[in-house]
């Protein structure tokens, strides 16, 4: 899962960089070369890549929390095995991305601490609840599907370690997406109750997945450092349109209805109406849709989503409860678990 396109990257001041070196660096980027950690790079690039990789790593490990909660409740042994493997993959993605960030100059312990004290963020989409098995299916279909689209474009980036990690991660994301697709298909070809559960979960996840790609682009996005330096390679709105073009007709084929919804503070749908704007524009070949509620997006990002506190609380508890293990490992001592 995951992808970090909604990380707020504000990069400026390259003014104090050596203009000669900066020009060479940008020429290498334009030539499609990859930048390696030992190569010269603007300080703002190093900082931006660290921020991006760290945000992505945070998203991987927080994203696994709602899914991890469902392992014990999976409906069959095969689904349980698959979900366990998926969660293991996501934590592995976090490990790899933290490692890249460590190489860019921040310790892992500091990153884990900054995450649980709210100094750094993770992807907004993980602040929504997963109350039923239908949500687990939707997360793997829509969110891992969105993550693959995004991470494929990130694999065309310019920072060598990040690009190689994206390639490796995407192999595993393909499994997450396919098993998600299988779960959604199973539910939608199942009983009336299963189809209803699936529709309700779809209603909860459709708009968060459209917002997954981040807010609308600024008019000059292509000239700003993240794209100028190939830290990302496709505009948010373009990714979003490709996502809708792929998933809207698939959802309709499955018999799902696409709704505009209102939700209560816990993220549960309180009312819904069909999206009247949803249709294929024959001229452009694009599916038109009602734009998401961006106020909601910013509200959730600022910490007021349904699950922000819950996610951080669990991560912080895990960090604190795991302390004796890390202590034992780091010091090689015979520290015992705290008495219950």
């Amino acid at each position, binding site marked *: 899962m995951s992808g970090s396109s909604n990380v707020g990257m504000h990069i400026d001041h390259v003014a104090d960089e050596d203009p000669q070196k900066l020009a060479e660096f940008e020429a290498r980027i334009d030539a499609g070369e990859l930048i390696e950690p030992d190569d010269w790079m603007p300080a703002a690039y190093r900082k931006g890549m660290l921020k991006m990789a760290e945000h992505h790593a945070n998203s991987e490990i927080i994203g696994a929390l709602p899914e991890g909660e469902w392992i014990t409740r999976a409906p069959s042994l095969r689904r349980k095995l698959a979900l366990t493997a998926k969660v293991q993959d996501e934590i592995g993605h976090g490990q790899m991305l933290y490692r890249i960030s460590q190489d860019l100059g921040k310790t892992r312990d500091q990153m884990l601490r900054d995450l649980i004290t*709210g100094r750094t963020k993770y992807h907004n989409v993980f602040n929504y609840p997963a109350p039923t098995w239908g949500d687990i299916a939707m997360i793997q279909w829509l969110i891992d599907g969105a993550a693959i689209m995004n991470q494929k474009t990130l694999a065309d980036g310019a920072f060598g370690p990040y690009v190689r990690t994206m390639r490796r991660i995407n192999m595993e994301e393909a499994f997450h997406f396919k098993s998600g697709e299988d779960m959604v298909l199973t539910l939608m070809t199942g009983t009336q109750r299963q189809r209803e559960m699936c529709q309700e979960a779809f209603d909860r996840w459709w708009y968060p997945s459209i917002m997954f790609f981040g807010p609308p682009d600024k008019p000059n996005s292509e000239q700003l450092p993240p794209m100028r330096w190939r830290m990302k390679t496709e505009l948010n709105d373009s990714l979003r349109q490709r996502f809708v073009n792929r998933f809207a007709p698939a959802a309709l*084929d499955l018999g799902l209805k696409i709704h505009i919804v209102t939700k209560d503070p816990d993220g549960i749908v309180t009312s819904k109406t069909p999206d009247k704007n949803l249709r294929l524009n024959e001229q452009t070949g694009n599916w038109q849709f009602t734009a998401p509620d961006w106020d909601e997006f910013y509200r959730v990002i600022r910490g007021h989503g349904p699950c922000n506190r819950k996610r951080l609380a669990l991560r912080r508890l895990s960090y604190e409860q795991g302390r004796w293990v890390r202590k034992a490992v780091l010091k090689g001592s015979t520290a015992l678990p705290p008495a219950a």
Partner: protein
Amino acid sequence: MSKIREHITLVEGDLDTPIEGDLEPYVIFTQLATGRPYIYAGWVDAIDAAMAIQFGREHYGQDQKCVGLWAIPKPAITAGGAEMTARGRYEVFLRAESGEPHRSAGCVEAESSREALDTARRDISGAAEARSIWVALSERIVATGPDDVIWRLTDQTYRMARGYASEVRAKWEEVRARKDIEEYEKDDLKEMF
């Protein structure tokens, strides 16, 4: 357990425990078939080489069929910067094209890591044109044994995309056929019969 975990209260503010520090980074290489080069896979953080190999197997040995694994402490790999003055056999790794992973390409005997790099450029085929060369003292490499089973013994296709491909396709056909039938039956005068 789940119900309890649903209702943990968030403790806010700074942690009152000191910064703990990180484990040691190890670089992991995987060998996909006997006799083939070891290819850079990624890193793991570990307390020692044994733990690095264990993590490496879990982490990098399960995506592709893999017969061997190397773990090398990151500081033991030289790319030309810091010099190691140790005499011995050095393993040479080459990145042939920009962005490609490093691959093992042979060994050289040298007095130091710098000499190993120079010798490699001269004696190892492809090294002169390589985009990047790494050398590491062979004795610092920890490897899995020839009889170690790294790849899974049981069927684990449930953790691969291809484990779902044919089922997913069959289900889509069913869904789309059902839709076509509904479309076709739309004008049926069911109430007449």
